[in-house]
């Protein structure tokens, strides 16, 4: 290490280089060393922690000082560069200010700047002198510092300092080593699905027109990388720029997206910082995905609970109310599809399994079979909750899965209504083909009831089916008004939501699973004792559905309170 100045610190090691023939101080801790240079010499100094007076004298004679005697450093405004005990740099126009600290207070200080001495009296009662050097031009300036005692005495300490004044350094076109990269997400901390579905965007701030590498990696639940894609980008990357990249990126990840639990996005530039963002899927304790295992289509459970209490079960299309426990987190897809459900504590994940399309097309239409028990509230609730399980399950993108789900929901609803509505209505339901409902409306009207008020109710419903089919709200309001007298007789006169309950019961009974349980049980009890209301509601539901081609989606929107 070369000491640019002339200061030595006790306890430090130095190498002193001088012209050939120069005499180094004759001290036991100074030893000559090899130097491969002509007309130059070098010695190694291992400065002891404590210097004796003879040491100091020998060093002074050689033009060296110890820092214990004197310290010179920038003060106030940090130098643009500062090599301790040697060189300080400032930019042109900046005030060069130094502090000179003396362990033994001198009488005065002499600064020699480019051969010109400047004498400054030492301030009283202080060991430090602050000096301003104004007007230094661009370039290197050697400053010699001598601390003098009263006139006639030898110097107390001496040394030198190099001050460099330079023009400001211009920023290169490429990034400076100091400039960082900032990765911003909006909203902050988005989920994987937010990014995937375009609900969140990314922007990368950084030195303009600077190339960088963008890497995107999808990882599974165990953190294993499923795929990594790299792109070269130019900073800064705006949100619009990210949006343009996101589409092609999604295509590259399409086949492993379902398996992924998180995405890591990073931006890096050699020699500059590395910024990254990790977005996970959003915590789902249990999640089903469709994949392939040994070329077999499979449903795989991603279990992020502790796993010990997770129960998995399967319900078939053919018998949708019968539960089959499954051991293990996966199931090969049955030919006709079905429902898989995982439960752990309060967490539930259910998925409708898509059927094999070829099998589906080659088979005659499958009618799910729904055995029922006695006409009790418990049995009604069992069917209602089973409907809810099928209704609330996630659907894959396969449209045939939705079809199979629809078959099951219709079958459960039909059997639930039949359980309460009586034998004649049950026979109607069993023989009903939903494509022929229009042709059987008269029969339904007749089967609603036999007493005069019941026949009047049925006639009123029949006369308004076409109008109620316009909107779910029309149906709900119209039906509620229509049944008001009969409902009052059944003890539901003070329930303005009775019509909504009955329509939901007769169309999408599973949606009643979210109703308050005690209230729901009371309403179910009324329905059990007043089957005419169930028949009337079923007539209204089937009739309006038949009047409108897409009645299922419209009715979904509006019945429930």
């Amino acid at each position, binding site marked *: 290490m070369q000491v640019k100045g002339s200061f030595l610190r006790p306890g430090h090691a130095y190498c002193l280089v001088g012209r050939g023939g120069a005499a180094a101080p004759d001290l036991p801790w100074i030893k000559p060393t090899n130097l491969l240079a002509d007309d130059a010499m070098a010695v190694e100094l291992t400065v002891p922690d404590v210097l004796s007076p003879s040491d100091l004298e020998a060093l002074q004679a050689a033009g060296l000082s110890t820092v214990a005697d004197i310290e010179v450093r920038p003060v106030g405004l940090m130098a643009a560069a500062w090599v301790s005990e040697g060189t300080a740099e400032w930019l042109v126009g900046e005030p060069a200010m130094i502090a000179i600290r003396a362990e033994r207070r001198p009488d005065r200080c002499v600064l020699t700047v480019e051969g010109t001495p400047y004498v400054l009296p030492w301030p009283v009662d202080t060991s430090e002198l602050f000096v301003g050097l104004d007007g230094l031009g661009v370039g290197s300036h050697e400053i010699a510092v001598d601390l003098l005692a009263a006139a006639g005495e030898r110097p107390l300490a001496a040394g030198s300092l190099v001050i460099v004044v330079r023009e400001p350094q211009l920023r290169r076109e490429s990034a*400076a080593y100091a400039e960082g990269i900032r990765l911003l997400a909006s909203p902050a901390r988005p989920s994987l699905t937010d990014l995937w579905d375009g609900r969140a965007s990314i922007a990368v701030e950084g030195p303009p027109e600077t190339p960088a590498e963008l890497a995107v990696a999808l990882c599974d639940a165990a953190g294993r990388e499923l795929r990594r894609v790299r792109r070269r980008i130019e900073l800064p990357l705006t949100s619009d720029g990210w949006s343009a990249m996101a589409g092609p990126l999604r295509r590259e990840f399409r086949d492993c997206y379902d398996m992924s639990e998180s995405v890591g996005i990073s931006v890096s530039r050699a020699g500059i910082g590395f910024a990254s963002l990790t977005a996970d899927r959003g915590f789902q304790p249990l999640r089903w995905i469709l994949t392939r295992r040994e070329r077999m289509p499979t449903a795989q459970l991603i279990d992020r609970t502790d796993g010990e209490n997770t129960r998995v079960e399967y319900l078939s299309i053919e018998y949708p109310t019968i539960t089959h426990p499954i051991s293990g987190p996966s199931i090969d897809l049955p030919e006709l599809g079905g429902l898989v459900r995982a439960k752990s504590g309060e967490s539930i994940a259910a998925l409708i399994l898509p059927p094999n399309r070829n099998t589906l097309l080659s088979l005659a239409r499958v009618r799910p079979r729904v055995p029922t028990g006695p006409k009790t509230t418990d049995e009604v609730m069992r069917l209602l909750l089973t409907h809810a399980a099928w209704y609330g399950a996630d659907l894959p993108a396969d449209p045939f899965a939705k079809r199979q789900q629809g078959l099951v929901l219709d079958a459960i609803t039909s059997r639930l209504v039949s359980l309460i509505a009586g034998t004649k209505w049950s026979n109607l339901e069993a023989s009903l083909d939903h494509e022929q409902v229009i042709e059987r409306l008269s029969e339904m009207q007749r089967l609603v009831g036999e007493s005069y008020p019941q026949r009047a109710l049925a006639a009123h419903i029949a006369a308004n089916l076409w109008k109620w089919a316009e909107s779910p709200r029309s149906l709900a309001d119209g039906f509620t008004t229509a049944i008001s007298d009969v409902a009052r007789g059944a003890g539901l006169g003070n329930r303005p939501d009775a019509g909504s309950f009955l329509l939901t019961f007769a169309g999408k009974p599973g949606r009643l699973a979210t109703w308050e349980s005690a209230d729901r049980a009371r309403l179910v009890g009324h329905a059990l004792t007043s089957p005419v209301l169930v028949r009337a509601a079923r007539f209204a539901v089937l009739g309006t559905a038949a009047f409108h081609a897409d009645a299922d989606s419209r009715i979904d929107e509006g019945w429930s309170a």
Partner: protein
Amino acid sequence: MKVSHLTSAEVAARAVGALGLDPEVVEFGSAEAICAALRRAASFLCPASPRQLADAVGEAIAPLSTGGSPAREEVMAQLELLVAAGDFLELSEASDRSTRRIYLGPPAFVCKAPGLYLLLGVRPYGAPLVDSTLSSQILHEGHTRTLELAPESASDRLAAAGLHELSLDQWLEHPAPAAPDDVFAEFRLRLSAAGPAGQVDGLKLLDPAAPVRFYRGRWRDPRADDDGDFVARRPQAYGADLWCAARLHAGQPAHLIDLPLDPTAVGRDEAWRLQAAIDATRGTPQQYRTHRASGCGDAVLVDLFGPVPTWAERRVELVGLPVSRSTGALLSYRVPAVAVGDVEAFLAGMLWMTRSPDGGTA
């Protein structure tokens, strides 16, 4: 060439002037001066560790020991504010991800309000952030630098000066707005999925039943009748207590998850937001207070009775300044009257807070 003896006051004044501040207005040991010195140090030294930057500034100002040179802790505190604001970036090394160093934040600006722009970032090699014309108009307040410009031309002027515009959302980095029920529900879901907590000694709970205006008094030990989900802290062998969410049965922890869940977030930020959600779902939302105070002119004091996440602090500090806390408050900010509405809307929307008609005790 002139060599002159300077007093410490003269050194300080020259330094403040060289940092682009007005020595008649800004004191050498003030937050504004410290931040300007840190920006200068970073401009020449980055990438550097926080300690290197603090040492460089400290070394230059330490000789001015009289007249209140700032302590190292103050320098580090301002450094953290500059990192939090975005003037500096704390990033991993590209080659060694475990080492984090300070880099210069890219020059940018954020529109605080039409006509008012927060400047961010530092240029390398001591270059000024903006030209001298704009520099002379910068308002320095604490660690922030603000420019007041005609709104119709501000974006173009600042873009021409080489500053990139950040949206407020990008700068604030706050989570997406959500209902308190949803925020609480997510944590409950995670607690349900967590394994058994086992023995947890020294657990402290934030009591949701305790008054929301007495933050310190809400902390207590678990009791035998504690059932439910709580924000908590638990001691660890080395370092500050860990923030966590805990589910208790009969006063014993059944499930526990450490915070933060998001590795880029701060544990206490998630904890305080969760507590705000719990309080809101219980019908006892956290509160803030607004009032005028003498000597504040047209500004309003906004008092908070409990801590808020960092991103909420940034939002309030976007338009206001932290001041000595009012009686009964934990935090107080001086906010211009015209901006109070936005601050209130933010506190209500993001932390479900309501205005307190009267005081409380922090």
